[in-house]
């Protein structure tokens, strides 16, 4: 998995490539929580277009990001969900709790 950040005014977009599984989800959790809690970025956006697999530990990391954003009153946005990502959020019955867009343009405009 590779994760890189694009930082703009009050927005950070994380581009993730690969799988978010047991070996990688701690890193996703770490960068999300740092951006939200330490750096107080008001809008954190996750680009999932290149994420081919998310397991339950990856979903747990996303849920931690969601909970942190709710506590802080910030926004946590996902876009570009692959079939796998959408399926696991569906199975977890979490799809409706996340702010999800199809594209980066929509995520930034929303």
């Amino acid at each position, binding site marked *: 998995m590779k994760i890189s950040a694009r930082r703009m005014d009050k927005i950070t977009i994380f581009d993730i490539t690969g*799988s978010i*599984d*047991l*070996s990688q989800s701690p890193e996703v959790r770490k960068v999300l929580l740092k951006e939200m809690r330490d750096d107080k970025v008001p809008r954190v956006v996750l680009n999932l277009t290149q994420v081919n*697999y998310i*397991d*339950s*530990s990856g*979903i*747990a*990391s996303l*849920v*931690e990001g*969601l*909970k942190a954003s709710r506590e802080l009153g910030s926004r946590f946005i996902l876009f570009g969900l692959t*079939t*796998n990502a959408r*399926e*696991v959020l569906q*199975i*977890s*019955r*979490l799809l409706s*709790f996340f702010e999800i867009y199809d594209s980066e343009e929509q995520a930034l405009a929303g």
Partner: protein
Amino acid sequence: MDRRDLLLRLQLNSNPEILCVVRSAVAQLSEEMGFSAEECRAVTRAVDEALTNVIRHAYQGKRGKPIELSCRRVEDSSEAGRRGALEIVLEDHGAAADPKKMVGRPLDDIRPGGLGLHFIQQSVDLMEYKRIAGANRLRLLKYLQPMKHEVSR
């Protein structure tokens, strides 16, 4: 089961980095067996989550501990007709699981964790756990959809 043909046997270490290798192998095997794309993702997800549970819970995150994964094509026949399935068995020598706790948690509350078993149960037709001679044995079964000529019988 009338027939049991071994398709794949892997001896693994309990290192999280191996998960992506196993996912690739299982996804390919499922596709070769004739599962649909959605079913292949389900089988792969079940195996990945089961292995993750072994690494996290049975071996408590310790690396280098042995896990054996075997996949068989099984087939049984009854009055309802023949049914083919993929049988996946995972064996490890870690701490025993408590069968009473092997149920997916309620999904009403939004909180991290506890989703792995739910994912497995949603992804396969049968999940069976046994503790045999100091080893954990998890058996998963995913049925192939009946062939058209079998449906019409």
